[in-house]
């Protein structure tokens, strides 16, 4: 495994929205090029409080001969992310990565559909950038859902990358009113399972309802899951998610090492 520990230096950590931040971290050039959907474990303090590292998807990545820059787009939801948001330029963080399996970017169909809920836009944004380069001819449609207008994040970058963008908010304060899965469902007839690749990331509830929609049909989708993590490298078995195994029996897979990207059909919901 080519992931490793790096001392990162924060070169930027700006609020991009009420409680979302964009953090740019410089690491040594030996940092392996990440795949879209991979993440890092970030140790926020050298101290024991908070104790565990936090998993954050790689939002963007670039390198020059002297260093690499990892960009993280994150939302403040608790203690750890609050401390991250408070870190100033030049402060150091420990980075473990790149971790996990990214999205499958090889067998991509001619129609690409992205469904992002809230901060779930982070990994899909890097995926979009990547697919734009590798599959310039396939046509791409991106569905972005947010709680409300002031919760919108990462949209400008998406717009830069793709013309076909649908935006909705739960309360209709921006774009269409409704859940992103509902908006997508309205369009679903436009797509043919055989030539459509669907990628999704967002809250559990969103992915669950997406599963309801797709499992009625022949569509399959690659989705990125989230679970609390301790090690991030597959050693502790802490980030288990219930998956339908080859032989259709239930198995607990590790989001960090077997995922975070899974085939939506394989996920067993409570």
């Amino acid at each position: 495994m080519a992931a490793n520990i790096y001392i990162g230096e924060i070169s930027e950590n700006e609020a991009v929205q009420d409680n979302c931040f964009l953090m740019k971290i410089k690491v040594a050039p030996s940092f392996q090029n990440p795949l879209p959907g991979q993440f890092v474990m970030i140790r926020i303090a050298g101290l024991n409080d908070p104790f565990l590292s936090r998993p954050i998807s790689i939002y963007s990545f670039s390198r020059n001969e002297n260093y690499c820059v990892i960009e993280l787009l994150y939302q403040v939801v608790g203690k750890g992310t609050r401390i991250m948001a408070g870190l100033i330029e030049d402060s150091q963080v420990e980075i473990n990565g790149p971790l996990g399996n990214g999205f499958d970017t090889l067998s991509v169909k001619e129609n690409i559909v992205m469904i992002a809920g809230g901060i779930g836009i982070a990994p899909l944004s890097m995926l979009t950038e990547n697919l734009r380069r590798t599959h310039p001819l396939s046509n791409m449609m991106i569905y972005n859902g947010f709680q409300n207008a002031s919760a919108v994040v990462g949209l400008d970058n998406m717009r830069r990358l793709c013309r076909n963008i649908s935006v909705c908010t739960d309360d209709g304060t921006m774009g269409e009113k409704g859940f992103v899965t509902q908006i997508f469902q309205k369009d679903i007839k436009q797509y043919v399972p055989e030539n459509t690749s669907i990628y999704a990331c967002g809250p559990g509830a969103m992915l669950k309802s997406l599963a309801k929609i797709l499992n009625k049909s022949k569509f399959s989708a690659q989705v990125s899951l989230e679970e609390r993590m301790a090690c991030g490298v597959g050693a502790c078995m802490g980030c288990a998610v219930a998956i339908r195994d080859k032989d259709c029996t239930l198995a607990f897979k590790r989001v960090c090492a077997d995922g975070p990207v899974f085939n939506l059909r394989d996920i067993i919901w409570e």
Partner: protein
Amino acid sequence: MAVKLGRLKLNNPVMTASGTFGYGEEYAGYVDLNRLGAVVVKGLSLKPRLGNPPPRIMETTGGMLNSIGLQNIGVEAFIEEKLPFLRKYDTAVIANIYGETYDEFKKVAKKLSLAKGVHALEVNISCPNVKKGGASFGTDPKIAARVTRTVKDETGLPVIVKLTPNVTDIAQIAESVEKAGADIISLINTLTGMSVDLNTRCPHLKNITGGLSGPAIKPVALRMVWQVIQRVSVPVIGIGGIMTAEDALEFLVLGAKAVEIGTANFVNPHATLDVIEGIKNYLADHKIKDINDIIGTFRN
């Protein structure tokens, strides 16, 4: 830095703690396993175990709760799929074993004894996460002794018995497993704890309770190791909350012949190597040539 725990010889006293280092390969990209005193693998049961439903972990102040429920691939898959990789290293491989019946302990011990490349067995009579059995084995001196004897009868390998801290009198359990033939005693396993999610008013862990580990429990681990060392003559391995070389040295000074590093691996995959380096530096700074000259030098 080599230490001897009876028949078990280690290149240095720093081992990994079961369940926190996978089967070794998960951290092989971070740590040269050849530099470790020993790799203790995830607890093995006779058949593969699904483990507990998620959520399985929760952060606490200075530590974490886990209720993995001993998910593992089973002893046979371990021998076929994992052991060959570990054999490539010149580092002691210790199989942590778990059973819900005496017979399971017996069968698992037997299979591992026949496999090439296992240097010792660590008997987990203490896992507090599994509702059936688990803790119960380790909280009763007689039952703990019987598990020890059961395993001893099946193997020629050194048998390490790993104690649970969730007891009134740890030294009594230690004496009892020593009498039953334990070659080495390791402690502590996790303290049973829980936490409540105020958004849902449900437990953070689906299993309700879980095992508390990390620096938060180090003072309890040190106390129990000290209590046990005063009462048994077999070598003792110290476990619990070790993050730094100083933490490890506290256990060694008390008389532990080796230490296991667990949760620290999660927050710092280089933890084991950092501890080894740190111990070397401490010995150098204090002009101590042999690691064994610091072990058991506690004064009170």
